[in-house]
Every structure is written in structure tokens, then in C-alpha cells.
């Protein structure tokens, strides 16, 4: 009777809930500084231009 539960399936899912949250934490920590500057310059520029246009209209 792991953790006081009758059914091993319930013990398993209780642990899985915690582990899946930990997976999220580990993923975030592992990737903390990765993929910061992947946006292609051209697209970003295009987007900025569009934004300026909208601003003018406003």
C-alpha cells in the first residue's frame, strides 16, 4: 500500500502527477536560455513596419 493508497494504479497516478510537474520544471530549467534569438531579422523588421503603419492609422 504505497502512500496509503489501496490500488497501485492510484499510487502510480499520484506519483505521475508530481513527476510530470517536475518534468515541466526540469524542461524549463534546461532550456532557460535556449532559443532566445531565433526570429529571422527580416520577419521582425516586416512586423515592426506593419506596426508603425497601424500606429499611424490610429
Amino acid at each position, binding site marked *: *500500500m504505497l*502512500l*496509503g*493508497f*489501496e*490500488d497501485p*494504479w*492510484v499510487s502510480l*497516478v*499520484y506519483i*505521475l*502527477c*508530481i513527476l*510530470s*510537474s517536475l*518534468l*515541466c*520544471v526540469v*524542461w*524549463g*530549467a534546461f*532550456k*532557460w*536560455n*535556449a*532559443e*532566445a*534569438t*531565433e*526570429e*529571422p*531579422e*527580416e*520577419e*521582425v523588421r*516586416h*512586423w515592426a513596419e*506593419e*506596426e508603425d503603419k*497601424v*500606429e499611424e*492609422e*490610429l
Partner: protein
Amino acid sequence: MDSMWMTLCVIIYLFVVGYLGYRGYRGTHTATDYLVGGRKIHPYVMAMSYGATFISTSAIVGFGGAAGVFGMGLLWLTFLNIFAGIFLAFVFFGGRTHVMGLRLDAHTFPELLGRRFQSRFVQGGAALLVFIFMPLYTSAVLIGAAKYLGEQLAIPYEAALFVFSIIIALYVIMGGIKGVMYTDALQGTIMLAGMTALILLTYSKLGGVVPAHQALTDLASQVPEKLAKGGHLGWTSMPKLGSPLWWTLVSTIVMGVGIGVLAQPQLAVRYMTVKSRREINRAVPIGGIFILMMTGVAFVVGALTNVYFFNNTGKISIAAAGGDVEAIIPMFVKASMPGWFSVLFMLALLSAAMSTISSQFHAMGTSLGRDLVEQSLRKGRASGGLLATRVGILIGIVVSVYLGYELEKQFGKTGTEIVARGTAIFFGLCACAFLPMYIGALWSRAITKAGAIAGMLSGAFASVFWMLFVHEKESTALLLCKKLFGVRSLGIRMVEGTEPGQMVEQFIRHGKFIWAFVDPLIIGLPLAVIVTIVVSMLSRKFSEDHLRRCFGGLAKAKQAS
């Protein structure tokens, strides 16, 4: 004394919410600010906003109460919520949606799909579906929140409904997505504090983690005979494999996860509000822990209430709550927790409702204003970019509040039934109409414009048809089937006269009415997938240039030439 504190805290809370809405308003200068937060939202705010929008009051009170009846087997839903609803959603859908949204300069979910498939029809059609079907979902959350608030503060339901709607309307219309997300972050933080305190207080009251579980295990002999016959083996066991209760639990879990969540416009747009993929990665831990502390805590505490009620009243939870599943958690909090916690918990539930509703208002309004009027019909641009969107939000709010107020007034119990199905209807529709096209948009270069349109239409029509005429739960509530054919559902002609409560028993005994129980998702989603693929195989592909623009490599290709 307590009610004075409660009122005071609600007033302070509303002032802070108002201030954050004002901050959103001050920080909003362009359409990009209003629609996607200038693409500079902090990962904490993004994750909290996603989570708080995802979790409404009913996820805590309704599903928590259900755990009081079914037991901890419901935790499979939490596991799937975290793993699929956060991890897979952020890591796979989030990253790609963000990058493609930036490349195509998309500001809303329908706009992303429309630009990816170079189709104003896709953008307008997706927006129209959102605008038609979301108000019912919003009403469902709104009515629940107004009733709860009315009871807590001892004010009439109507007053609560209007005051509540006006406050949310103000910060959504003025502050746009920034107003929504800043307030969401505060509301998510309050929810996190409330649920953390709830689990700590519950375990400490019941003697610690393992002793509390053990006490619940020891209660297995108290399972009512009716539930035991259905396959209930105790609150720390799964129901008997293949039993009616097992099927109910599994279908609740499957539907609760709702594949539709992955393709919900108000959630998908969150990925486009941050600066880069890095921010989405940073949001993953916050989202994962948030969901664990929401549904995970609600289900564990919901099940453990049995120990508390049995020790104090000699009854299990559902008996102590007089058969009202949704009353279990509020009753437990009122009976067992200190006064200060009741106030915190009330604010947490208020936050859960407001954060979901504000995002719904924003999504409805942007669909009508930005996607349908401005972009798809090409009107309103000259009259000033945001006006159409703001008017769209206002119309969305008026429709939702009207539905919340009038349906119940006009149709009484039937009206309540219709609204109660609102969430399921919207989730089902999102999955059938948007999911195949959305996955195709992000991962496949082979899905064509015609394929996307055909898939969206077939998914939408199939699921709406199934809801109106076959799936017993919706077709009964929506009344059209009864009016046209004289039966509640075309799938259960033979058991007309059976009460809804006896449906499952009838099904198990005869096994002949299966179609009436098959969820619209099971029909609409595979159909939409097949149609999307087949039509794409037969129709004209997108140009290489457009695909490069969507999937990257455009700049490099230009340099090379």
C-alpha cells in the same frame, strides 16, 4: 464579522484588478499591443494567464466534488492536463505557433489560420464559429460565478451578474489583452495561494499525507450500495475494470482533458504574446506546477473530504452535501477551515471565474471585430484600427450576459440545461473544426487551402449535427430534435420515456443505443481529419514561396537568388 471582511477583501481585490486593467490600458498604443500584448509579455504572466484561463471555477468546485464521489482515480485527468495540456501543448504547439505567428504577422488564432492557408474564408469562418458558439460557454462560466458571488456577498443574482460583467467588460475593452493578462496573472497567483493553503490545511487536519490517504482507504466499506454495484471499490482505488462507473470515470477524464483545449483560440493566442520561444520554455515550469496545484489539489482534497465528513458527521461527502456534488468542496471549506481561509478561497474562486471570462470576452470580440469585420470582410480599417475590435468585444459581452440572464428567465430549467452544455459544445466544436487544420498548419506542407476549408466545414457541420440530433446530452437540451422529430435524440428512439439518469443503465443492459452516447468529437474529428487529407491530396498545393514564408528559410532563399 466574516461577511464584513469578505466584502472588504472583495472591494480591495476589485480595486487591484481595476488598477491592473488601467495599467494594461496605459500600455496599449497599437493594435499589436491590444491583440497580442506587443509580443513582449513576461513568461510568468503568460503561463499564469494560460493556466488561469484554462481553469474555471467548475474545474475546482465541480470536478473536485466529482472526486468526492469517484475518488482519486480522477487524478488521471490531472496527469493528462499537465502532460498534454501544458507540456506537449507548450513545447510542441506553443513554439511553432509562436514562430509562425511572427512570420505571418498574425494577431489572433483565426488570423494565423487564415494567413497560413491564404484564405479570408478560413479566417472569417473560424471567427464566425468562435463568435456564435463561445457566448454559450461564456454564459456557463458567468452564471456559475454570479450565483456564487451573490450567495457569498448576500446580494441578488441579477445584481451580481451585472456588476461582475461590467467590471470585466471595462478592463477587457479598455486594456485589451494586456489588461486581460495582467489581471490573469494576479488572479492566477491568488488561485495558487488559495489552493496551496487548501492542500496544506487539509493534510495537516487529517494527520499528514500518508495517514490521510490511509484513513480514506479504510473508508472503503462505507461506499453506498448503489455506487458499489456500479463498480466503486473505494476512494483510493480505480473502479472495477469495465464497470459502469469505470466507463463514466474514463469518459469524464477523456472529455475533461478535451482535445479541444489544444485548439482553443483564447489559449492558442497566448503563444503569440511572448517575445521568443525562450519565454515559452520558461513558462512551462510555471504552467505545470499551476495545473498540479489546481486540479491535482482539488481532486485530492475532494476525495479526502470523505474522511473529514465521516469523522465529524458519520456520513460520506455526497450524503453530507445532500446529493449535491458541487456543494461538497464549499461545504468542506466552510465547515473545516479557518475564517481567513474562507475569504482567500472565495477570492480564488472569483479569480478562477474572472480570468476565464475575461479571455473569452477578448477572444469573442477580436473574432468579430478584427477577424470578421476588418480582415475577412475588409471593412472598418479606415474608421480606426481598434474600434471594430472594441465594439466586437462589447457585442460579445452583451450577447453572453443576455444569454445568461434571459435563457434562465425565459425557459427556466430548460434554459439552465442549455447553458450547462455550453462548455462541452464549444470544446467539441473547437476540436472538430480547428484541430486538424491547426496541426496541418503547423507541421504539414501538404495541406492545401481547399483541404483546410473542407476539413473545417465538415468538422463543424458534423459536430453541430451530432449535438443537435444524436448526442443525447446536447440534443435533449437544445430541443430542436424534439421539435422536428418528436424524440430527444435520433439515436435513442427506442427508449423514449426513459429518464436521463437511467440512460447509462439502459445502455449497459441493451447496448443498442450506443450512438446517443458517442461524443460529437468521436464522429467529427476523424471525419474532419479524413476530409482534410483527401481534399488536400486532390487540390492545388501552396507555392514554395508561401511555404518558405510560413516555415522559414525565406530570407536565406532570397539571399541565394
